[in-house]
C-alpha cells in the first residue's frame, strides 16, 4: 500500500456501539492521521430543555445517555436544588450515592466487556455482561427499570430502600466482588490481553493535562484527580475511599483503573448501606426557582460531568448546558490514535469509553477527500435518488420484462 489509505470507520461499524465517523489515514498498518467525526447524536437537547419546566426537563436530561443517566440527572438536580436553596434529606443523599455507585459498577463491567469484544476476546465480553445482569436485576428491583432508572426527582428521591432490598444488594455486592477479583488477576495475568493492550494508545501525563482528559483516562496516566474528592457532593466527604491511579499511561492502565474502581464502588455501597439514617426521602421544592446561575459537577463513570443551569425566576430554565465526560476526552483520543496500528484503533476508541449520545455533537465526514466507495453503490444510490425526487421509489417499480439481463 504505497499511497496512504484513508479508512472511514463508521458511522456504521461493528466496533462502534454508536454513530461516529473516524477518518484514519494509514501508511501500511500504521495510523498517521486521525480525524474525529462525532455528533451524529446531536438531538438539540438544550433547546428542548428551554421549552420545558424543571420537572419535564428532568426526563430529557435523564436520556442524554443511556448508561450514565443517573449521573446526568443527579448533576442537574444538585444544581437546581442549590439554586432553590433546598437541602435534600440525608437519606435521599445516601440513596442517590448508592445509585451513583451501582451505575458505576454496571458501566465499568459494560466497558470491560466492550473492550474484550474490541480485541476479539469474546469470552470476556460474555462473562462480564453476564455478571452485569446481577447489577441490572438489583436496579430493576429497586426502581423498576434496567436503564434510565427514574429514581431522582426535584428535592430528593422517588422511592425508598426497604430492608429486604438492602440484603439483596449486599448479596449482589459479595457476588460481584468475587467475580471482580477473577477479572483483576485475569487483567494482570492473561498474556494475550497484555499483548494487545500494553503500549497501546499512549497518553503521557503532560498530554493528559494539556488536552484536558477526565476520569479513568486521566487517572490511568498517573494524575490523582476525581471530582468526588476535588469538589465533594452528596455523602462523599464522609466516605473513606481512595482514588485509583495507575501510571502505565496506556489502554492496559485504563483496564486496571476501571477494574479496581469496581472494588472501590462496592466499598462505598457497603459503607452507605451500613450507616444510612432513617427519615423522609423528599423535601418540598418551590415550583418557581429564583433567578441565578449555578455550575454543578459530578463524577460520572467516564469522567467529570459539568452542568450549567441559569434560572430566570419562572418555572422554565432559561439555559441548560451539559458538558458530558466523553466530550473532554476527544482530543486526547485523537492524539492517542496517531502512531499506533489500525488493529488498535477500535480498542483505543473504546478505551476512553466514548458515549457519543452524551457528547451531543455533530461533525460530518467530507466525502470529497475521504473514503473510496465501491462504484456500485454510487450508481445504485444515484439511480434511486434520481427517481426519489421524481416522487417514485424505483425499488418498488416492476421493471418491464423486455429488459434482458
Amino acid at each position: 500500500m504505497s499511497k496512504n489509505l484513508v479508512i472511514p470507520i463508521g458511522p456504521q461499524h461493528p466496533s462502534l456501539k454508536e454513530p461516529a465517523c473516524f477518518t484514519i489515514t494509514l501508511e501500511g498498518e500504521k495510523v498517521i492521521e486521525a480525524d474525529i467525526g462525532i455528533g451524529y447524536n446531536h438531538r438539540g437537547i438544550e433547546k428542548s430543555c428551554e421549552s420545558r419546566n424543571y420537572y419535564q426537563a428532568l426526563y430529557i436530561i435523564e436520556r442524554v445517555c443511556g448508561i450514565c443517566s443517573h449521573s446526568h440527572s443527579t448533576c442537574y438536580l444538585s444544581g437546581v436544588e442549590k439554586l432553590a436553596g433546598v437541602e435534600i434529606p440525608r437519606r435521599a443523599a445516601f440513596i442517590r450515592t448508592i445509585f451513583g455507585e451501582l451505575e458505576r459498577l454496571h458501566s465499568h463491567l459494560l466497558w470491560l466487556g466492550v473492550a474484550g469484544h474490541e480485541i476479539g476476546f469474546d469470552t470476556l465480553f460474555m462473562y462480564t455482561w453476564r455478571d452485569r445482569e446481577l447489577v441490572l436485576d438489583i436496579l430493576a428491583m429497586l426502581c423498576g427499570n434496567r436503564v434510565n432508572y427514574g429514581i431522582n426527582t426535584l428535592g430528593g428521591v422517588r422511592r425508598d430502600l426497604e430492608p429486604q432490598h438492602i440484603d439483596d444488594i449486599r448479596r449482589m455486592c459479595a457476588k460481584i466482588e468475587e467475580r471482580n477479583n477473577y477479572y483483576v488477576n485475569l487483567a494482570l495475568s492473561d498474556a494475550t490481553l497484555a499483548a494487545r493492550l500494553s503500549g497501546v494508545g499512549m497518553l503521557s501525563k503532560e498530554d493528559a493535562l494539556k488536552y484536558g482528559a477526565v476520569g479513568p483516562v486521566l487517572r490511568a496516566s498517573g494524575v490523582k484527580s476525581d471530582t468526588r474528592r476535588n469538589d465533594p457532593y452528596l455523602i462523599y466527604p464522609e466516605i473513606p475511599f481512595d482514588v485509583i491511579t495507575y501510571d502505565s499511561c496506556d489502554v492496559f492502565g485504563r483496564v486496571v483503573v476501571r477494574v479496581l474502581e469496581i472494588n472501590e464502588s462496592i466499598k462505598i455501597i457497603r459503607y452507605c448501606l451500613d450507616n444510612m439514617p432513617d427519615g423522609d426521602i423528599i423535601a418540598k421544592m418551590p415550583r418557581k426557582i429564583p433567578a441565578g446561575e449555578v455550575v454543578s459537577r459530578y463524577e460520572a463513570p467516564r469522567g467529570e460531568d459539568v452542568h450549567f443551569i441559569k434560572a430566570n425566576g419562572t418555572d422554565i430554565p432559561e439555559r441548560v448546558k451539559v458538558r458530558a465526560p466523553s466530550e473532554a476526552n476527544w482530543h486526547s483520543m485523537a492524539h492517542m490514535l496517531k502512531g499506533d496500528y489500525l488493529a488498535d484503533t477500535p480498542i483505543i476508541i473504546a478505551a476512553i469509553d466514548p458515549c457519543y449520545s452524551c457528547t451531543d455533537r455533530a461533525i460530518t465526514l467530507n466525502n470529497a477527500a475521504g473514503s473510496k466507495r465501491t462504484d456500485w453503490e454510487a450508481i445504485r444510490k444515484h439511480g434511486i435518488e434520481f427517481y426519489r425526487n421524481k416522487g417514485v421509489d424505483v425499488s418498488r417499480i416492476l421493471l418491464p420484462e423486455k429488459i434482458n439481463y
Partner: protein
Amino acid sequence: MNPLKKLIKWAQRKSPWIIHFNAGACNGCDIEVVDALTPRFDLERFGVLQKGSPRHADVLVCTGAVTMQTADRLKNIYDQMAEPKFVVAVGTCACSGGVFGDCYCVKGGIDAVIPVSAYIPGCAARPEAIIDGVVKLLSTLEDKKLQPKNPIVINSEKELADMLDEAEAAEENTETENFEENKAKEDNENA
C-alpha cells in the same frame, strides 16, 4: 422446484442475521440489543448472529430517533443490504421519535426514512421484548409471499441510465395511478 423454495423460506425463518445501527439514540436501547446476545438472553438460540457488513445481514436493527445527520447514512445502509431485508425499530425513539420528537434536529422515528417491518416500543426496550419482537417478525415470514427477486446486475452507468429511461417511459403511461398513490403517501405523512 417447490421443495427448494420451501427449504429456503424455512431457512430464512431460522437464521436471521442482524446488523445494528444507532441512528441518534441515547444508547440505552443499543446496550439492550447487544445485551440480548449475551449469556442470559442468548439470541443465538434462534440462530441470530450479529454481522458487521450490510451485505451479510438480513435484519437491520435500528435504535434511536433519526437525526438529520444520520438520515442519509441510514438510507445508504438500507440500500446496501441484500434483499429480502427487514427493519426492526427498537425503542420508543426509533418507533416515533420518542422524547426527542420535537427537537429541531430530529426527523422522527425510523419510518420517516426507511420502511419498518417491526416496532419494539419501550424506553430502553428490554431484551425480552427485543427477542419477542424478533421471533414474531420471523413467524410472519411464512405467510408473506417472499420470492427473492432475481438479481438485477447493472454493469455500467450507461446501462443503468437506459434502464431508468425505460422505466421513466413506463412511468409516463402509469402517471394517473401514481398521482393518487403519491397523494395518499402525502396524506399519511403529514397525518
